[in-house]
């Protein structure tokens, strides 16, 4: 069916005619998040929520400390090859480690990425397709490096940051990949990462 016939049928169902006025939609309502804009509180709330959904949080005071933590995590997870995004912070942290990048993304043991921001209300990370979709998706381990100043209160605030200019794929990721499709038994690492490690800088 062509567009005009299709939408025409809907219009007719509503008893409307082309060009009929449209009332204003209800005033936007943003879900309440009981957290103040104070950055210390934002980070505390984010940390509690992030760990509550099964993420693992590591705090670093400096880039060097972040690098040490990353190095330790890679060894703990026996990571042989990685996918790395070209975000500046990720590059600064990873470069001296001279990590082996996987030739085939499907073979990588871990993905190392940044995030657009962290969402305090739900302990989520907002990931953008601008730096690639695979590193945060395909490997079983997802390692994230993020400045604590990039934590915002809620998804609404995160979306506002883009103005009208959204990337093709934005993902709000909250904890590891999970399922409860077999007898409501929670299992992680179904398709996406089973382990999400966040190194929060500052």
């Amino acid at each position, binding site marked *: 069916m062509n567009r005009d016939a*299709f939408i025409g049928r809907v219009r007719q*169902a*509503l008893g409307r005619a082309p060009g009929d006025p449209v009332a204003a939609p209800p005033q*936007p309502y*943003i879900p309440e998040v009981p957290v103040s804009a104070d950055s210390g509180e934002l980070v505390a709330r984010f940390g509690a929520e992030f760990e509550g959904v099964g993420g693992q949080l590591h705090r670093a005071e400096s880039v060097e400390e972040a690098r040490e933590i990353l190095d330790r995590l890679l060894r703990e997870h026996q990571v042989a090859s990685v996918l790395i995004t070209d975000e500046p912070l990720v590059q600064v942290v990873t470069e001296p480690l001279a990590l082996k990048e996987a030739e085939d993304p499907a073979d990588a043991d871990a993905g190392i990425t940044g995030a657009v921001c962290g969402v305090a209300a739900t302990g989520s990370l907002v990931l953008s397709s601008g730096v690639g979709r695979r590193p945060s998706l395909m490997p079983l381990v997802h390692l994230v490096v993020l400045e604590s100043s990039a934590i915002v209160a809620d998804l609404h605030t995160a979306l506002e940051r883009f103005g009208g200019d959204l990337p093709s794929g934005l993902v709000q990721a909250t904890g590891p*990949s999970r399922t409860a*499709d*077999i007898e409501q038994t929670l299992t992680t690492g179904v*398709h996406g990462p089973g382990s999400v490690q966040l190194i929060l800088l500052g």
Partner: protein
Amino acid sequence: MEITTSRFKENASGALGDSNLQAAMRRATGSFLSRRSAAVADQGDFEALRAYCGAVKAHTLEYLDHYLEQLVDRVEALGGTVHFAADGEEAVRIVTDLAVANGVRTVAKSKSMLSEEIHLNEALEAAGVCPVETDLGEYILQIDGDFPSHIIGPALHKTKEQITQLFHEKLGTAADATVSELTAAARRILRRSFLEADMGVTGVNFAVAETGTIALVENEGNIRFSTSLPRIHLAMMGIEKIVPRMRDLPAFLNVLTRSATGQKASSYISILTGSRRAGEPDGPEAFHLLIVDNGRSSVLADPKLRDVLRCIRCGACLNSCPVYQQVGGHAYGWVYSGPIGAVLDPGLLGLEETQMLPHASSLCGACGEVCPVKIPLPELLVEHRRRAVERGLAPRTERLGIGAYAFIASRPILWNSGTTGGRVAARLLDRGGSLKAGWVPGLASWLKERDFPAPARRSFRELWRRGLKDRA
């Protein structure tokens, strides 16, 4: 799947006798309900959010033609292709033609109730394209030739033992595999499908008219794969999936995940705006949006029923329904089950085939209370029942019975002598406070599964007349 909505009674009695199903239903609905309650309590302004989401959906439906135009304009401006299907047949033809024209051999499919509604998999297979269900629950059903019984947990009617056995037979996993071993096997096998697939097919949870964005909600990551790796992404939606603005999205995502699985946010929410941009390292080359009517515009044209199109498919009404809890989703005989199915199915399939479904309810009202977009489900169940009677679809016995009742109840002399006679008869059958009348024709089957308390010795009307006089 074959539509068996007209055989609800037979389906339901089969379900009641299935002890595996009974155990699975109890576990699943109980767990969904308790997690939902906790998540709703955690969001202090949940009631305000429900009211808001209900109002936004009502508004969107009222001006749906406008928002469809806006959405289509935006998606096309982003370089996407929009397809329109009047019915299921046209919808599957569009998808299969697109797949065939692009040389697609494998389709990675993410859970979509709409695709079940239009029988997409059968059509793709017939066209030589292999559709692979990638949601774990849907994958279990696909390899078993079964179909979903719940919007959120499609395979919740199966026990772990049944799934272990199924995987053992079909995939060669150990006969005593654990749940995480089963999940790991599915990860391994489905990962190959994601890498092979030329096209990802998904549903749509919300389509944002002002930006041409679609939002998809999941926990496993299969939607992220389906929308990231294959070179084509096709998303299909019913006309009712629209919200006007990006600013509406957080509220809807909030009520959806809390109502569906009791999560503050599901693991992954994909907010997709067109296909891969210049400078982006990966992502689909082409984005197609398929908008399907398939009976929805006639529901829209019905002012009383229109509200049912607000539904965001969270499944909370299923979990809260005492009838669904007992009989499970398959008994309803079509993709949409539970209270929402009992209201939506007659709208989409016609009341002739489905008039049993609105009776699969005790009208307890629980569904209306949990609905995150405030669909007046109990009222709509009654509305369908009323229409079935008006159109002469209700069973003859019901019509005769109600007719006789109306005749008597509107004539005080008949009513009084009837109730007096009834009480006298009841006294004769009274055995310790309840009636034993299994031998009375017509009552036997009713009394088999129910107690019939003996009526009071004096009727309310009698007590009213005397008591009030005495007190005065």
